[in-house]
């Protein structure tokens, strides 16, 4: 459905996207993962014909973004990072306008707008001005705009950014519901989001693809390198020694926390869960264990693991 071939985009001397290639099959949900400035938005803008590529080709639904932009635009629904809304229009007026410029035939317009409104659950704010809507509703109206013309491909740039947890869950469910009938690319910098919604992940950094896999494989590869954080009351040095003695522990750092509690960050061998052993080791040495926590992988850590060889040395505390 989407074929990207050594796509490059340069702004003057800066290279935003540097020879990216990937494919997305029909009905698939692809997660586009990367830190800010990695080139996610630029790639998406090229796929939606907003920007022309400097080099390389991209084909969406069989049409080249450069040679047949109108055909591509008809087949793509796009939600930019900030939803492109007119604050002085009401939701209904806005969606009606979008339907018109997206080439929805006049006789289908009403039903399509109604469908999008229902799918994105914005029915209760139909007549409200967009200026008066909360962030979550705005995001949903933006999403309604993207699916309005029933496009083959949906391109969503950070669809859950700035939403509260409940809204994030709702939006994820919505996206999952759209998969199958639509091919979806969504960008994010939150790893759990990818594993929850995407069938496949492309990680990009500095304009290049650094990894491409299913979320399960990716998290399996990364989980082993995760850190466990222990909070221990008692002598810091001896607790640290006890932790380091546990088999499978690679690195452990300690620092003083509040109220005489030492915080110890432990990195274990890949694929090995050492939490039980850690707890046992600490407690048997006569320290009180007040906290034990598997730290989530931050994006920075993932990148360190993916892009640098000496990850253990430089892994920052989350």
């Amino acid at each position, binding site marked *: 459905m989407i074929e990207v071939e050594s796509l490059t985009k340069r702004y003057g001397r800066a290279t935003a996207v540097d020879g990216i290639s990937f494919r997305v099959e029909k009905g698939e949900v692809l997660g586009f993962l990367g830190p800010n400035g990695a080139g996610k938005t630029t790639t998406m803008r090229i796929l939606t014909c907003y920007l022309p590529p400097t080099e390389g080709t991209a084909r969406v639904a069989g049409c080249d973004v450069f040679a047949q932009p109108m055909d591509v635009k008809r087949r793509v629904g796009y939600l930019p990072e900030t939803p*492109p809304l007119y604050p*002085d229009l009401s939701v209904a007026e806005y969606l009606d306008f979008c339907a018109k*410029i997206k080439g929805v035939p006049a006789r289908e317009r009403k039903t399509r707008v109604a469908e999008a409104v229902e799918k994105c659950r914005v029915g209760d704010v139909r007549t409200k001005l967009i200026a008066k809507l909360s962030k979550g509703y705005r995001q949903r109206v933006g999403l309604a705009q993207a699916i309005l013309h029933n496009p083959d491909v949906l391109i969503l740039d950070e669809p859950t950014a700035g939403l509260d947890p409940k809204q994030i869950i709702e939006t994820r469910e919505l996206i999952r519901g759209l998969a199958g009938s639509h091919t979806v690319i969504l960008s994010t910098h939150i790893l759990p989001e990818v594993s929850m919604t995407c069938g496949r992940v492309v990680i990009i950094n500095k304009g290049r693809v650094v990894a491409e896999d299913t979320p399960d494989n990716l998290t399996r590869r990364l989980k082993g390198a995760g850190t466990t954080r222990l909070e221990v009351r008692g002598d810091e040095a001896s607790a640290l020694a006890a932790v380091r003695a546990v088999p499978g522990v690679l690195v452990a750092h300690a620092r003083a926390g509040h109220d005489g509690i030492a915080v110890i960050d432990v990195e274990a061998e890949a694929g090995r869960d050492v939490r039980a052993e850690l707890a046992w080791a600490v407690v048997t040495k006569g320290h009180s264990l007040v906290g034990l926590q598997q730290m989530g992988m931050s994006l920075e850590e993932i990148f360190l693991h993916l892009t640098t060889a000496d990850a253990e040395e430089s892994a920052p505390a989350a």
Partner: protein
Amino acid sequence: MTALRNTAAIVGKEWRHYFGSPIAWVALFVWTMLFGIFYYFSFSFFLEQSMRIAQQGMEYGGGMKISLNEYLIRPLFHNMAVVALFLAPMLTMRLFAEEKRQGTIELLATSPISVFQIVLGKFLAASGLYALMILAGLVNVALIWSYATSPPEWKPVATGALGLFLLGACFLAMGTFVSTLTRNQIVAGILSFCLFLGMWTLGWADDPTAGPVMKAVAYLGVTTHLEDFVKGVVDLKAAAFYLSVITFGLFLAHQSVESQRWRA
């Protein structure tokens, strides 16, 4: 067909912006108020003149009728052209600047609608509002017909209004272009006004003793071509001049939007 529908969609949206915000109402208010004031002054002047001439006629015999067209309608249209100079930036400054600031330009640019349709739609929306303003002002002039014993010729009124419309449309086309240059409405407004003023002052080069160069400069001024229209003549040359300026403005706007896509 699709082109027409797309353009109409843009026109509709722009009108919604104009009338959903104070812009259209303020523009209509200021325009009709000034139209009324200028109308009143021109009318008083006309009455004064006709009184004096009537007096002269009684004293010296003979006497003549002075033309309503000459004393009332002509100066009125010229005055309103000045008002158009001031109001046109208000109508065009937000057209593209606001889309860029809000990021909605991304919506337009990724929808199956051509840049030309967007530019044309926005220009037509502004001209439509401007045409409405002129019609609202003409209500004043229409009153003459219901009161005057010898009503003025209607043709110069119609052609004068057409001339005024074309002159303003030149501003609106150029203003549409200027609005594509920045994401700041105020900057677009000020730059447009300076540009319009430039287009206006070129006409000042026109004077009977002017050499060929100055004549050419004067030809490029927007006001130079208004005179014929106000006199009741639709000069094809003048009409062609206005239409060329409008086309040129829309062309610049189109090129500007297209090129920003490449430079972005």
